[in-house]
Structure formats: structure tokens, C-alpha cells
């Protein structure tokens, strides 16, 4: 059985790129499932280092949604072709 790995990361949430990295690490955690446990501490701007709630609790709902097939049955391929052309146009 693989051992659980705990990684502690301190990020400055007022820095945009840190927020992106936090998001990225969260993705990695989701991909790795139970084998990796990530724990985050947020450095609150101006307020010193304070432990924050686990990032999992703050994960936006929308960013977890899956992007499934777009087209209904029936004239699916024709519609799909037209929309694909639209995407390539712009």
C-alpha cells in the first residue's frame, strides 16, 4: 500500500499567479485522489501568516463541472460540424 504524502504549501492569495498555482495544485490533488493529501496555508495580505480552511472547501463548483458532449441526437453531426466551423473561424 502506498503511503500518504502530505505537502504543505504557503501561498500569498493577494498574488494572482499564486492563486493560479493553488488552483493547479488542487487539480493535481483531484487527479491523484486519495493517495495525495494537500494542505494549504494562506498568507493573508497585511495580516501575517494565518492558517486557512482547507482549499477543498473553497473549490468553486463551476470549476469542477465536466464538459460533456454538446449536441443532441438527431441532426447532431450537421450541427456539430457547423459549430466547429464557427470555432475555427474565430
Amino acid at each position, binding site marked *: 500500500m502506498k503511503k500518504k504524502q502530505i505537502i504543505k504549501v504557503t501561498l500569498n492569495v493577494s498574488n*494572482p499567479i499564486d492563486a493560479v498555482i493553488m*488552483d493547479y495544485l488542487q487539480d493535481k490533488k483531484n487527479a491523484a485522489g486519495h493517495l495525495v493529501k494537500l494542505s494549504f496555508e494562506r498568507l493573508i495580505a497585511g495580516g501575517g501568516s494565518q492558517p486557512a480552511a482547507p482549499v477543498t472547501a473553497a473549490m468553486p463548483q463551476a470549476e469542477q463541472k465536466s464538459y460533456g458532449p454538446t449536441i443532441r441526437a438527431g441532426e447532431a453531426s450537421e450541427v456539430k460540424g457547423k459549430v466547429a466551423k464557427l470555432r475555427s473561424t474565430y
Partner: protein
Amino acid sequence: MSRKVVAVDAGYGDVKIKFRDKNGVVQDDIFNSIVGNYDPGISVDGLKSEMDIVEVDGEKFIVGRGALKHSSRIFNGRDKDWITSAAYKALFAAGLYKCGCNAVDLIIMSGLPVTFYRSDKARLEGIIRDLAHTCSLKLTVKVIPQPVGAFFSLLFDEEGQVKDESLLSGRVGVLDIGFFTSDLVTMDELEIVDKQIGSFENGVSTALEAIIKDFNSEFGTRYDSHKDLHKIESAVRAGKIKISGEEIDITRIVNGRLDELADEIKTNAKTTWKDGLDLDQVILCGGGAALLNGQLKSLYSHARVIENSQFANVTGYFNFGENIAREA
């Protein structure tokens, strides 16, 4: 992978934005396209002033209405090179900031007036990339012609799915009545008809400038046709204005000037679309469409003002962005 779509419609009059909040709910917002210089000035402890301050190319700007109160210089533009100005970048950056645009995989959608589209698309995409390069690990930028955004708002829902398949093969005229200009395109089977692209110098500001002159002459006010446009626009939409503490009904003056503007726009539209019989639909969008709703009823029997017309373009950018995100 976390992916986020944000849409910014930086118009001459207002900046409109659309995005999903942290709960996945689609939100929109709007602020005036006013940019002023930032001067720290005197601050008083305990008094917090509401200002949106943005730093672009090492210079700080105040964006939105706060600039009128706190800036000594207001930057404005309505020409083709407006998109390369620091003021435009400040407006766009403020829009991105308000969207909360940080994401691992970020898709930014925006638009350009139809007449500048082909010449400036790559330039605007580059400007947006420069502004947003620290916001994501993977950045996609798409710029589409502004009125096509309104068309996309009818074609796609906010999940990016096709919601009206009749538009895929239809011929649709779009008239986008903006602040300084009005744009017109025809979409035929999802393609822009090159011969039916138009942009003319009649927008909401045309009527506002005339209304300002009327006010100054009738009420002895000293409104400035450059600086006070947004203030007068609010009054026009409300149908009243406060002068010396007294609220005055302005519908008589306003309706006369809006009639004139609507007549000019109808003439321009009919020059391109003639009797409009070959169009399946004519949709009117932009902030001016809602304002001129009553006056534009006689344009064509099948013309209609799109719901929430001021946000139609940005809604289309967003919905199309969601479609791109689904298929990426």
C-alpha cells in the same frame, strides 16, 4: 483541469463583463468607460473612498465613475487607436479584475467594432495577452466582431450548447446601437455577409449631446458635452434631472432628440437592408436599443430589441466561450 471563461465588452460608453462566480453562477456587471489619472491626494483616517484603481504600464488610473470625482484629468477616446491607449488597457484590466480572472486554464472573450475587426483583431488579442499573462498557466484569447456577440447570445445558452438551431441556417440582421457608433452585420448560415457590414457615427451620444445643448439653453445649466455625457445618460434613462435641488421632468426634450436619432439609425439600416424581406430576423442590441425601443418599432415588423440588450454582446462572447471550453 479547472477552466474559466470570462467575457469583457469594453465599449466606448460602458464596460460590460460576464463570468461565473465561485459557486458557478453566471454573473454580469457594468461600469462606465471613464478613466482618469490617479493622484493619492489627501486621505482622512476612517473615510474610505470608493475607487477602482488599476495599474497599467507602471501608471495608476482610476476607472469608472470614481474618476469623475477624484481625477484631475479624464482620458477618453473614440478612434481606432483607442485600444492601444493606456486608458483602454486600464478599463480592460479593471474588467478582468472584476471577473476574478485567475484560473489554470483561462479563456478570455472580447470583441471589436466590425469595421476595425480584420485590421485590429491580432492587435487586441496581443494586448489582452499582455494584460492577463500572470493570471493563468494556459491562456486562450478570442476576439469576435461585436454584433456577432449578440447573435451568439441567441445561438448558444450559457452552458455553450446550441439553443436555437434555426439560427444555424438562417439569415439574421443585427443592429448594435452603441454609445458613439452603431454597427450592423448580416449573418447568413453563420457567416458574415461582407456586403452587409456597416458602421455609422450615430450612437446614444449623438442624442445626449443634443440634449445637453437643450438643457443648457432651457435651464441655464453648464453641462459639458464631453465630461457630462454619462451623467446626462443616467438622467435620460430616468426621465428626470435634478437642478437646484428640484427634480424636473425631461421626457419632452428627451423624446424629441431620441426620435431624431432613431430616424437617422433607421435610414442607415434601410440603406443596407432595404425592405429587410430577405432577413429571417432583425435583432437590435446595445445600450441604445433599449433606450430607443419605442422609436425603433417602425423599423421592420420582424425587428425586435433583444432582452437585456446592453449585455447582449458580452453574453454572446461568454456563451461562445463556454462552447469553446466544452470542446477544448
